[in-house]
């Protein structure tokens, strides 16, 4: 009987409710990781300070969990009361015991073979609200799972995968709603951000990222080009409870490389949109790359601090905007770029002539994959530092014919690397208010891993060669590394199990958990 009571006590946290209020105050319970970026402000920073520059050398793997699928493993785990909740490629989910890595349940979804995803059958993570988890799927559904068992509570269709839609983004739970975006920017979809009732799966609002006829912004698309304008929404946004605004990045206009067929600025592609959380109404937008022809999606996590929203954009520039209005306040190059003379006083790029793709090809920095990409930046609120993983890799851009066919790739050209030019990368620390460089740590290959900042004074990151590493946050000095053996395409998280701070990252086809011995 006594043993039974003990078992019940241990099991109790599993049933814990993750209320909206808990997510709102996520920073004050750093033992858990309750939403994609660790909190609504998009900081990917933790107040945990057990692991420090003094003891990080003793950080050791405590378990490794192998995924059941060989696609890229891009999950950012949630950690709730000692249990990790992850998505696995293609659209599966699992609960893992935080002490051992042993699975507690597994949700497996079969994906129709005709689903097209531009860049791998991947998924970046889950959202939690109350006692449900939420998973976007490659066949463009949103699924609610029982937190304790992984059983399906509801399953709703977001969009038609036969038209090129898919979902890889981690949803965002706000109040009683689940927000979700879509992928499909290379397949001529019309982008959207949706909100669903967390209890029922009923759609509450939809924001089209490409405005239709009669709506403001539709005039920035020649003819019917808005219909296939893309502006996909495949990275989780941020939320500001004070202004009740959702901030969400949008992707490239379609077709990617042929701008001739879509003359105009192509709103709201490559933009940050600020939406009313209750209604989905657009409050403001800021377009980073008007009439983009280089596939520079603005699908980066918006970082909120003070009265600002900041982002290091795929186009090579770092931006600081006024959060309530979207007004451009500061901008600065943070990665190598050869397409723009700079930003004007409204933040619009001054484009250098003859930098658009041609039939013969034009070499441009940043390349197609940008000066940074979807992997998360981190922000340390104690020092006001913005950390970002930077890619230095040019691309030769070709313009080609673009013919739209529903559900087929719609590139309008192609890309190639540059002979004799080995790509590289770095981790950079920027003064968040200005984008001014504080330090950089040189990588070998361009990174695909996001960053995690901790109050312990560390920045964790991952390399394409498979090192999970820790840098000293004030100086960028490397303090610790672990060779995981697979390329890292994921964001790190931190949490507490049995009183001990852990860090975790997916690499290759495995999830690793580390703690100080």
């Amino acid at each position, binding site marked *: 009987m006594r043993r039974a009571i003990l078992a019940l006590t241990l099991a109790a946290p599993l049933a814990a409710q993750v209320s909206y209020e808990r997510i709102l105050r996520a920073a004050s319970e750093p033992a858990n990781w309750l939403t994609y970026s660790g909190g609504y402000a998009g900081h990917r920073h933790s107040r945990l300070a057990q692991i420090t520059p003094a003891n990080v050398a003793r950080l050791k793997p405590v378990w490794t969990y192998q995924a059941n699928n060989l696609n890229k493993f891009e999950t950012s785990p949630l950690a709730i009361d000692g249990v990790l909740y992850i998505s696995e490629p293609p659209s599966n989910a699992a609960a893992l015991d935080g002490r051992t890595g042993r699975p507690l349940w597994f949700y497996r979804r079969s994906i129709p073979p005709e689903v097209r995803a531009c860049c791998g059958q991947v998924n970046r993570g889950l959202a939690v609200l109350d006692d449900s988890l939420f998973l976007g799927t490659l066949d463009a559904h949103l699924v609610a799972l029982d937190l304790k068992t992984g059983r399906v509570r509801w399953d709703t269709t977001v969009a038609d995968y036969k038209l090129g839609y898919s979902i890889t983004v981690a949803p965002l739970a706000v109040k009683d709603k689940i927000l979700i975006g879509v992928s499909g920017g290379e397949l001529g979809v019309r982008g959207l951000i949706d909100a669903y009732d967390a209890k029922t799966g009923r759609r509450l609002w939809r924001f089209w990222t490409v405005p239709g006829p009669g709506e403001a912004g539709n005039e920035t698309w020649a003819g019917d080009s808005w219909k296939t304008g893309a502006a996909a929404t495949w990275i989780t946004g941020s939320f500001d409870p004070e202004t009740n605004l959702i901030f969400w990045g949008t992707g490239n206009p379609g077709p990617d490389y042929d701008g001739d067929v879509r003359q105009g600025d192509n709103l709201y592609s490559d933009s940050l949109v600020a939406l009313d959380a209750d209604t989905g109404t657009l409050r403001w937008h800021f377009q980073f790359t008007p009439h983009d022809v280089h596939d520079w999606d603005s699908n980066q996590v918006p970082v909120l601090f003070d009265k600002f929203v900041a982002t290091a954009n795929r186009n090579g520039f770092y931006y600081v905007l006024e959060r309530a209005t979207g007004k451009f306040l500061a901008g600065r190059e943070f990665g190598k770029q050869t397409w723009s003379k700079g930003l004007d006083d409204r933040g619009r790029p001054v484009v250098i002539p003859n930098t658009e793709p041609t039939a*013969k090809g034009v070499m441009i920095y940043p390349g197609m994959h940008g000066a940074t990409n979807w992997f998360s930046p981190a922000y340390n609120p104690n020092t006001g530092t913005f950390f970002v993983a930077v890619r230095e890799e040019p691309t030769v851009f070709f313009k080609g014919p673009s013919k739209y066919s529903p559900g*087929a790739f719609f590139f309008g050209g192609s890309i*190639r*690397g540059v002979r004799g030019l080995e790509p590289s990368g770095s981790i950079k620390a920027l003064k968040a208010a200005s984008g001014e460089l504080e330090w950089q740590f040189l*990588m070998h290959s361009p990174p695909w891993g996001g960053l995690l900042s901790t109050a312990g004074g560390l920045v964790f990151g991952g390399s394409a060669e498979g090192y999970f590493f820790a840098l000293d946050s004030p100086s960028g000095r490397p303090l610790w590394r672990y060779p995981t053996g697979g390329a890292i395409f994921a964001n790190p998280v931190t949490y507490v199990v049995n009183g001990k701070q852990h860090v975790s990252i997916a690499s290759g086809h495995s999830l690793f958990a580390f703690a100080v011995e």
Partner: protein
Amino acid sequence: MPTFERLLFLWGLLALAPQTPSSLPHPAERHYAASCAGCHGPQGEGASGPSLAQAGLERAATEQALFDVIRNGIVGTEMPGTRHFTDEEVRQVADYVRSLGRAAVRAASGNAARGEELVRAKGGCQKCHTLRGRGGSLGPDLTEIGARRSPAYLRAALLDPEAAVPDNFSTYRWVTVIPDNFLQLRVSTRDGRRITGARVNEDAFSIQIRDLDGRHYSFWKDELAEIRKDWGKSPMPSFRKTFSDAELDDVVAWLLSLRGGS
């Protein structure tokens, strides 16, 4: 076939023929120019990639095989896939590639048997190159070189090796597991040793090197005082003075016959 359709069909063939002068090239020709010509040559004559101007393509004997090669690329080679093409475009490019094979091709003029002997003895090529499992590892394996390079490219590489340093960065890759550019390095260790050789692998923290004698080294970068990377350099000598023109033809003919297997 009704006359009109026959005319249309003939017009289609004409439009596909590479010699057709046209101010508005067929889409397939534009796709070929953008995505294929860089390695296979504007007329399919070959360059760093093999010639396509031949009647039969080894890796694409059937229409389906050619479609698959264009769509998916060839694993382990520099040939990338073309996910940016629609199925229809892949078929158009495949037709265009076949049309290149119908153009007249000049055969390699040398004597392959004599070339084999020159490679073995006078050239001493196997000191650095592996041929059918035998030879050194300082340079690329040549066992399939005939299936991968054109005659003109091979000849140019023999005369000016640094114009033909292997390099796959032109093919887009998510990650590079092992670099394949035989980058020449000069490193010095903190304890005063100097090592010259080819880079085997590298990451942010470590580097692996093979020296001219085939010895392997692995260093953490903080153990090294200096790493010099000799971009574009090759330890291969020019064979301009070693081989006569006729001998070069023979060597090229032998290299072209190397198409994998034994």
